[in-house]
């Protein structure tokens, strides 16, 4: 990767949840920070998200769920990425996610979880410092 290439982020809404305020705020902030953001829109299946991530050759996937379905959908996305041999994409998540679930999500490969009250600046810094490629 050349230094001129912008960081490419897939902002994704897995599942049926319609709360998109958070993901849109983050998408705007990442764009203002000079990243390229592809937003999936609502109601994406894990298969669609992984497919888009591969096609768009993104460096980061930022997942947002507020419906409580993270316990099924986040691990499923990680499983599919693994199956496709995608190991150099940084995956982060956010939404309404109880603290006690975070360890389990990290175990399957979600790098970090940003809950309510997280600052977009912290997310930007985190992405810059933890890119896998």
């Amino acid at each position, binding site marked *: 990767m050349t230094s001129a290439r912008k960081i490419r982020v897939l902002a994704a809404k897995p599942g*049926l949840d319609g709360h998109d305020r958070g993901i849109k705020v983050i998408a705007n*902030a990442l764009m203002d920070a000079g990243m390229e953001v592809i937003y999936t829109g609502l109601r994406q*299946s894990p298969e669609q998200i992984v497919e888009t991530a591969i096609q768009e050759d993104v460096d980061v996937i930022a997942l947002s769920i507020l419906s*409580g379905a993270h316990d099924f*959908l986040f691990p499923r996305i990680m499983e599919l990425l693994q199956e496709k041999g995608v190991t150099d994409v940084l995956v982060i998540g956010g939404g309404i996610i*109880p603290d006690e679930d975070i360890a389990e999500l990290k175990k399957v490969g979600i790098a970090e979880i940003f809950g309510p*009250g997280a600052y977009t600046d912290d997310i930007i810094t985190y992405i810059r410092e933890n890119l896998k490629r």
Partner: protein
Amino acid sequence: MFDRKMLEEIAREHKRWSDNLETSLKKRPERKHDFANTSGIPVNRVYLPGDIDDSDYMDEIGLPGEYPFTRGVQPTMYRGRLWTMRQYAGFATAEDTNRRYRFLLEQGQTGLSVAFDLPTQIGYDSDHPLAQGEVGKVGVAIDSLKDMEILFDRIPLDKVSTSMTINAPAAVLLAMYMAVGEQQGVASKGLRGTIQNDILKEYSARGTYIFPPKPSMRIITDIFAFCSREVPQWNSISISGYHIREAGSTAVQEVAFTLADGIAYVEAAIHAGLDVDEFGPRLSFFFNAHLDFLEEIAKFRAARRLWAVIMRERFKAKDPRSIMMRFHTQTAGCTLTAKQPKNNIVRVAFQALSAVLGGTQSLHTNSMDEAFCLPSEEAVQVALRTQQLIAHETGVTDTVDPLAGSYYIENLTNEIYERAQKYIEAIDELGGAAAAIEKGYIQREIQDSAYSYQKEIEKNERVVVGVNRFQVEEEPPKDLLRVNPAVRVSQIERLERLKSDRNNEKVKDILSDLRSAAEGSENLMPFILEAVRAYATLGEICDALRDVFGEYQPVSTLGG
């Protein structure tokens, strides 16, 4: 409104007072150079009679229970009857939720409010592949009339009123409720409650749409026509600003976009041949009670006045019940913090008080733990007690619209009214709410406001107690309410049993009739009611309609 001579004297005195202040302000400046509320309306140091002198009291403020209803929809307001205390609840199975409802009723709650899970809201049965991970999570899973019978077991539908947060499949859930009523021996004319049935804000802010706008509007007007004949005490729609605000809008935008949606529904119904006073009395609204206490009170009053003017002047409604805006309020979920969650009790109390001072007809108070999960029983109890405290201890219920006449409240009511009206004019120019949504205008306005709000917090221009000021180290909360993933398995088993027990030939015929009706122009409600009675599932009924109507494809509103 005031005597000229008195106003001149006040203006002179105000000038003297301001001049005197100048010197001390140099030494001790105010906390900010410019004060403004969340809608960006500048806030003056002090408000005076001159700030509301333009108002015509009888035309713009009036008496409670009379046009333009600024002071409330009933002449006696809470001196007569308190608002309905209605906690939005639902999770896991119909059995679990039925237990929570009976707990809430025992605790003195006066109405029910059903939260459905996302598959139900989007018209999928629990066995649909996209339902994986979502069954029973944000609400109760309802696949067929069987589940609905369990949900209202031992709850007399002639005694309680029930609000259902259901939009795209609202017709199906209303039909199920009517069918449960029939089983309990309650005629549809005796049923009281509300279906949200507000699809436009699903496109712009909430996301549980199924069909494209045109057939969606047809289903909605079918429901209006059907309810006015068959379920006359039912609120056939709850036109909702709540989710628009949660998605990030300002107070002014909340009023404007909600009323613009309202205008679109009234126009659609008139276009379908209904008389405005036939369905007008059953239109209801739903607003958010957010942080800025005085701005919120003014917002409720402004919304009532604006809707009254729209109904009377634009749509020539004559029945006062069509002209008065009745609304439900919920405190702002987006203001709950995960940090120091007990602070949320206090936030909710202020927000709830603003709704009461704004004249709400029913109220949901959020629970302190909702930034993590669904509320625990204890948290819900505190939330309900907050309403009971306002009702029985604070005294604010003893006189009608107690903040009327406050120079600031009346001035702000006028400001919000005028600014919302300008937005509605802009939306009219785009071709109305549906067209404005299809162009992405409303979505963009909302997301721009949401982004500015977040930037204000991150720049410390807006204080969030416990988040960017007054932080402490704390342990994460324990014993959160969790929904067992086995709910999906038990729902699927119940669906399988249902499909082997019912008369499948009959279901097939009824669904085929429904498809034909959808292709034509007959009212769909009687067909849906037949399907529900025969135990066709929610997913089957919605699929039949998907076959004919297709599905909505959202527009992208991010980026250039």
